[in-house]
């Protein structure tokens, strides 16, 4: 289990700042959550202004 950032990320960086595991990094034109570090705490979900972060089993547009 992990969370993922779905299509449409504008790389605002708010999720990266909030992640206690430092699991979010810069991908190619999007931020990316490292599934090996993500603990599903959902801190990133709370701050994403476009509500693009979901548990991976709900992702419509996985990375």
């Amino acid at each position, binding site marked *: 289990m992990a969370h993922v950032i779905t299509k449409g990320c*504008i*790389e605002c960086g708010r999720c990266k700042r909030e992640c206690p595991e430092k699991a979010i990094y810069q991908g190619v034109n999007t931020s990316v959550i490292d599934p090996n570090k993500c603990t599903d705490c959902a801190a990133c979900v709370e701050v994403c202004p476009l509500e693009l972060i979901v548990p991976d089993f709900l992702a419509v547009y996985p990375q």
Partner: protein
Amino acid sequence: MTENWNDNALFRPIKIGTHTAKNRMIINAMECCDSDPEGNPTDRTYERYTKLARGGAALINLEAITVTYEHRGRDAQLSIMPRNEKALAKFVSEIKKIDDSVIFIFQLTHSGELSRPEFSRRVCVKPLYGFGGDLLEEEDIERIMDEFTLAAKIAHNVGADGIDMKLCHGYLGSQLLRPYNDRQWKYGGSWENRSRFAFELFERIVREVNDPNFVMGSKVSAWEGFPGGCGSAGPTSSIMDLTESIALAKGLEERGAHYILQSAGSPSITLALSQPDEKIPDDAYLHHYFSSQYRRNLRPETVVIGSAYSIFGDGRNNLQAVKQEENTVWYWGDKNIREGVVDMIAFGRQSLADPAAPRKLIEGKPETVDWCTACDNCIELRIRQQNVGCASYNMPYVKALAKIRADEGLLAAKRT
């Protein structure tokens, strides 16, 4: 840093000319491209500055406001010409009603080679590779000086507390100052000629406004970071040499400048130097060096204002080798003021992320601040000539950026 939050040097007042700044935090000029077609403030402009006036900063520098609509960098740029006088008077009056202790100054600019050919005329003092433009002649510069002087008088008439003559970031003021401007004319070649525009214009404005309470100063790029740019050792040199940068500040001081607003870089060329971003934040420390050099060389009463503080935020940044609690904006503001590196600090991108950041800091509530992530989404909106705001925290701007990226794709290059 001091143990007691309230003893932070950021919260101490300071004199700027005959005015007293209530603390050491200012709002940097941020071009937000939301004027009406005449260059007057719109509802969005009012909304932004209303929030800033309530936000606790001691001084607000009205985003670079153009002295001419014939040459400008932004399609919807605020302007300061006779046609704007009435609207600007109302604007200043409304902002002053919110908090008349705020020192409200106008940053006056001419875009020169950064004027956008799509809607204005690009002009230059010497064609720069990748930019070009129609070559300005001496009579053109004299007309532009008239426009600046008139703009300063309008600023005074409408109730602004002062002006910031923009001599930075690659706009016309800095184009003239550069060693690269080695063209043999009245305004090029020797330092005496290259500094003539800045110095004579400053003298003219002081003389014609003729008000000792009118704050005068200038934002300057200590080093533009490319060969021949301001702060380099010669017209083709990549070597940093601050001799002329310091001479400029001292010359302005001799002519009545109350403050020098330090910056660096030219965002159309060296963006990350002007505005260190999340990926490469390290040049923020270079700004400390630049402001320290101004502070060391200027009179104690000339206020030195430092830039590039947004990157520090609450210490959750990408700067390495320093503890989070010793890498915050309040840590560096306090330390740099106490150690004589700078007198005040400027918030640029941070002022878009949270216009109330100064007030929240004064209240001892840094945890409530929406800290700038240095993502530069605001800059992308500016590059795309859209209304500019924080596209991380402010939803209309978040949605605008998401839509434009979906419709038009990614930017080819991040340069203003």
